[in-house]
């Protein structure tokens, strides 16, 4: 083939094992997705009988659930960019969109599901409506903190780089693509990882839900777990758990690790850090693969180029449309506010008409749950602080503990709740107290992580000074370690508290083998009203819980956080 250009020859020869691996992976992914997509809508809709717990269906189910999570993740990303942009660059943004996001963040995830199923079914019809509602529930578990991260990045962009984009006369689109998005990659990847980990937790609840007094089981590993719990099938539950662990590890290795390694490229600052940057075998393989390289050069880059040229022409033809954006975000926020007000008014009228005692009852239950949330955090801190400090200060232990703890954190502990509750019953612990350790299972990891990071960051000179002045035992804890890790402890506590409120919904009611155990609490009220289709009670419970979350944030966490930032800030 002498007529081929030389480089072409080279390319072909360099097609290596890695390329084969990539092709194999892509093909099998396509096949698997096709398999997973083969669901007859009638099966779901007509499902009155049992959902089959066949071990063979499990991998396909798992893939379906994974697809939903990824679709939700994509939606979260798009939402993040749009909402974050509008919030950061418009006048209404700061005053309305940001506080609104704060409230959205405190609404329990499952509340969105129950509230939205009806609407989605109306718009998309029964089958796709259920799917959309399920994806939407996962979306609500992911989107808010990603949006906050993006918004925060946009508000703290380096001034000089902003000036460069102006002097070079980049259009809004070019600014977004070449500056704002790259600048936000690292916080976005980190927050996406957390969001993604959080969405496993709601898999079971987001796939089987009540619609017009019928339980819908969407095919997926979440339904599998729900049904296994319902039937009290320990073997099926353990199998599902194993499958989940496998999925989490696979997604971590194949998706997140390469992303994290890639994101280091976007680190701000001019100094090359001394630390070993995170690396990923997959990323290196992808980068070195000639297949990917030529795909990049021949397909991706030309398309990107021509798209950009087109966008510039439009931008040049029309001067930056600030007012249009203003209009979009004004409409968006007034729509949201108007909608919320109308819904709230209707809801309030409905509540008053049906049950007067509902609101006070929900508030009392809220205090029970608040007690559990705080107990879970205090108890969690009791063991995570010493362990976290020990690990954080021992580089060798840290190396193998960190990934392990990460895995434990993203593992949806609620899958195991029924098995643990069976144990509780044996030792005579009722769920009113038992819900606390259940909530801890899901939330203590956040504290552990942050304490580990805090202990790791204690400056060496402070440690040495402590030694020189003979600080030992309890005194070194009081004088050095506790003050130094205080800010990270608070950050961990805030995250854990958010998680614990959400966890209360799944921890305060446990179903096993057809029996239902419930604690008295707001989380239980939400689950039970969902299960019984009592939308009024559900609405009240959700609103009350959101109020509790906002109130504890304002009254407890924010002052603590401010204290941490001012008093206990260790200068680098």
């Amino acid at each position: 083939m002498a007529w081929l250009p030389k480089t072409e020859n080279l390319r072909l020869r360099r097609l290596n094992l890695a390329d084969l691996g990539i092709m194999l992976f892509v093909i099998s992914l396509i096949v698997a997705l096709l398999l997973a997509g083969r669901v007859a809508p009638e099966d779901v809709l007509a499902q009155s009988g049992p959902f089959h717990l066949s071990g063979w269906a499990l991998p396909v189910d798992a893939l379906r659930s994974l697809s939903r999570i990824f679709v939700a993740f994509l939606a979260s990303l798009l939402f993040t960019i749009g909402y974050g942009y509008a919030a950061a660059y418009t006048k209404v943004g700061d005053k309305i969109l940001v506080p609104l996001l704060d409230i959205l963040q405190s609404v329990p995830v499952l509340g969105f599901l129950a509230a939205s199923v009806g609407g989605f079914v109306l718009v998309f019809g029964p089958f796709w409506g259920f799917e959309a509602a399920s994806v939407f529930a996962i979306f609500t578990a992911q989107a808010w903190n990603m949006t906050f991260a993006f918004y925060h990045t946009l508000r703290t962009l380096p001034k000089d780089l902003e000036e460069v984009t102006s002097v070079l006369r980049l259009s809004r689109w070019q600014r977004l693509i070449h500056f704002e998005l790259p600048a936000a990659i690292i916080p976005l990847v980190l927050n996406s990882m957390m969001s993604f980990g959080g969405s496993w937790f709601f898999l079971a609840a987001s796939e089987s839900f009540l619609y017009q007094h019928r339980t819908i089981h969407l095919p997926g590993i979440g339904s599998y777990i729900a049904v296994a719990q319902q039937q009290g099938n320990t073997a099926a539950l353990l199998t599902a758990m194993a499958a989940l662990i496998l999925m989490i590890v696979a997604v971590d290795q194949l998706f997140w690790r390469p992303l994290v390694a890639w994101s280091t490229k976007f680190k701000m600052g001019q100094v090359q850090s001394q630390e070993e940057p995170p690396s990923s075998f997959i990323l290196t393989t992808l980068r070195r693969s000639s297949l990917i390289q030529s795909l990049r050069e021949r397909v991706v880059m030309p398309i990107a180029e021509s798209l950009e040229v087109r966008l510039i022409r439009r931008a040049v033809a029309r001067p930056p449309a600030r007012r249009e954006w203003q209009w979009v975000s004004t409409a968006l926020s007034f729509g949201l506010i108007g909608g919320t007000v109308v819904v709230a008014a209707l809801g309030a009228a409905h509540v008053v008409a049906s049950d007067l005692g509902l609101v006070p009852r929900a508030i009392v239950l809220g205090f029970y749950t608040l007690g559990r949330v705080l107990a879970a955090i205090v108890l969690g801190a009791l063991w995570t602080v010493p362990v976290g400090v020990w690990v954080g200060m021992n580089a060798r232990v840290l190396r193998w503990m960190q990934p392990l703890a990460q895995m434990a954190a993203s593992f949806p502990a609620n899958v195991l709740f029924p098995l643990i509750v069976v144990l509780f019953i044996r030792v005579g612990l009722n769920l009113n107290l038992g819900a606390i350790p259940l909530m801890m299972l899901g939330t203590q990891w956040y504290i552990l992580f942050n304490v580990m990071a805090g202990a790791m960051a204690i400056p060496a000179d402070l440690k040495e000074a402590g030694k020189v002045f003979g600080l030992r035992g309890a005194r070194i804890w009081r004088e050095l370690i506790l003050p130094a890790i205080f800010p990270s402890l608070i950050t961990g506590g805030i995250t854990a508290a958010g998680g614990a409120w959400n966890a209360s919904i799944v921890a305060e009611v446990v179903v096993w083998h057809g029996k239902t155990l419930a604690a008295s609490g707001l989380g239980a009220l939400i689950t039970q009203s969902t299960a019984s289709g009592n939308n009024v009670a559900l609405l009240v419970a959700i609103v009350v819980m959101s109020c509790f979350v906002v109130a504890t944030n304002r009254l407890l966490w924010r002052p603590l956080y401010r204290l941490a930032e001012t008093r206990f800030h260790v200068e680098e």
Partner: protein
Amino acid sequence: MAKRQTLLSVDALTKDYTMPGGNPVRVLDQISFGVEDGEFVTILGPSGSGKSTLLRIIAGLVTPSSGEVRYLDQPVSGVNPHVAMVFQSFALFPWLTVQENVELGLKSRGLSVKERHERSLRVIDMIGLDGFEGAYPKELSGGMRQRVGFARALVMEPDVLLMDEPFSALDVLTAENLRRDLLELWLEKRIPTKAVLIVTHSIEEAVYMGDRAVILSREPARVLAEVPILLPHWREREDVRFVRLVDQIYQTLTARPVAADSVFARGRPAPVPAVRAGSLTGMIELLDDLGGSTDLYRLADELNMDLEDLLPILEAVEMLGLGRVREGDAQLTETGRAFAQATVLRRKELFRDTALTNVPALAHIRHQLERHPQHRVGAESFLELFERYYSAEDSRSQMETLIDWGRYAELLAYDQETDQIYLEAETADPKAVPGSA
């Protein structure tokens, strides 16, 4: 010299900022000057003189409160299309390679890939970056990074090249090397740039590179003088004419009208330079060692410091009545000499007396504390007084300095946790001898 065409001009530029206290503060006041075709102009001024703001107004990044920027006698609004800019901090995108950074601006012009590559590679070669096209900024040294900054500006082939302290983040040798390279490109007309406008605080840099220096005053910035620099290139720093020019500009810069002392009630308090008591005593000891009086130029040399860093310290010394600057010389006063030779405790007493007489703001704080029944006042109430006239950042910095001086003089104590200023029990009586407790 034949009259050349005026390329760029600023006409009565004024910039006001509104302070947190609500008062507008003037940063730039009626600034007018022109840049001719083929001219290399430097803007010289002490720190805080708003010279970077001036450059940003010319670039169209900041809108003036009044006045206008003209290009070939046409008013320019929005981002100035005829300029490119080089930044003090380099301002490179860390995720783009050298070549991608250089090409970024060309992308907004909608050039084809081929054309972009050709133009960027030509500039990269010219500026001495070949071989580094694919490197990321993190992999480069400071000097190489600023070369990328130059390449990114030059590839746009601007008529006017704006530079904001482009060499001040570099070490001495690298800066000198880069200055020479840039000057060579300019003098040999290897770049199509028609004029260069550079902001700097280094007088030597201005005299070394420019055809003319526009000298700005401080608070607000006005044009103090325009000094033509007619020495032929390449200029030698040891040249008598060079030294004379530098000295002349030094004197113009430091011949500030003495600000009338004013208490808060009577208007804007004199700005307190952010200099800690430690640096103050160090400077006074040094001046004493040098015989109590010395040439500013020599002093800067002795300390290996830039004018930018030296001036605030001298200002503080002058404010406290410990020394003064006259016609390019810094000298100690009687009190200053006594201070230099006193013991640690005696120094504190001297400092306290002179501070109370010469720094009205400090006297005011002390007075308020004595009047207060608990001798304890929140710092924010004093901060507000500053914020009527200064930005939040400046006010905090001035307050911090006053607290530092007050602590050193044992005039006051400060509790950071409650943000309160108070009198310690043993110093509440103004006549008590400090340190006797």
